[in-house]
């Protein structure tokens, strides 16, 4: 079981990820920070969608894109979320 943390400052807003990975599967994950997105509660949908997923960056990207399909991000973009998640997962894998 490895734990990973990474934070990244998007154009507007800091995105933090805390992730727990076991056997290349995301066991637990939380996004936090001062980013802005609408509707807000999609962030919990994203966390739930990512739990149980394998840590393949392209698959994780697909999940984020799907969940964020109708989301309005203000000052950040999907790539920012993919980047911070992939980095946190990398840290967790080396933990």
């Amino acid at each position: 079981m490895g734990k990973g943390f990474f934070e990244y400052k998007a154009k507007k807003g800091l995105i933090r990820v805390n992730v727990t990975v076991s056997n290349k599967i995301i066991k637990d994950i939380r996004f936090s920070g001062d980013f802005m997105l609408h509707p807000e509660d999609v962030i919990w949908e994203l966390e739930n969608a990512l739990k149980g997923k394998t840590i393949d960056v392209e698959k994780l990207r697909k999940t984020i894109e799907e969940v964020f399909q109708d989301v309005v991000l203000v000052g950040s973009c999907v790539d920012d979320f993919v980047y911070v998640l992939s980095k946190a997962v990398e840290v967790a894998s080396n933990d």
Partner: protein
Amino acid sequence: MTKLRVLLFETPEDPYYNLAFEEAFLLARHLGYVEDDTLRIWRNSNAVVIGYFQFAEEEVRIDAVNRLNVKVVRRFTGGGAVYHDLGNINYAIVVRGMRKKGTIIDNLYKYLLGGAVKGIKELGVNARIENINDIVSANRKISGCAAKYLKDTLFLHGSLLVNTDLSKLASVLKISKKKLADKDISSVKYRVTTLNNLLGKNLKYGDIIEALVKGYSSLLNAEPYFDLPSKEEIELANRLYNKYISVEWNYKRAPSSRFTNLIKDFLK
């Protein structure tokens, strides 16, 4: 001429109720319990207000907060943590329907934030919007804001630094190293200042109220009138208070959906 309802309702010693009322007056307008678009101006006496996606432990120096008796409360909008004392004046505006062509985000930030900018200009400070949702003057940030929409109801609230204790602000908030290290000019984290510092005089609370009311009535082309909270707003706030005083909400980043049962008979 359309009307702009103005509320000066505030509970500065009880930031939990202040934030409960903030959600209540948005919901009351959205659900049709209130007829007119509403501007609320209010203050907290000693509180840190964190954003919806933030964890208190990541944003707040808990030792300083405990020592200085600062209450920590989480709001229902995104964005960052702010320190509130009586020198920080909050404005919140709720309107029904899009006002401008363009996206909902343009309507929220570029347009609705314009009322606060107009108000600040009334006070003799040359201010402008920068970096989406900051109000800046002389390259210093004086106001930040956050927004939310519920279908066609647009809501924006912000805090305006008039005479805030900036050293106390710095001692209770954690500033991320990532933010300090950021060299990207487009995402400069402006240094902050207060209106009193910029003007070299002491503004009164009444001056700010007058300026913000002027700014928003001019923006919305509406006739302002002062009002008291409606009974539905108070009832909604009373119920939502249980959310805003909870550890689950303030410290564990629980989603709003976990508290909808508190107000379910209003949502029918």
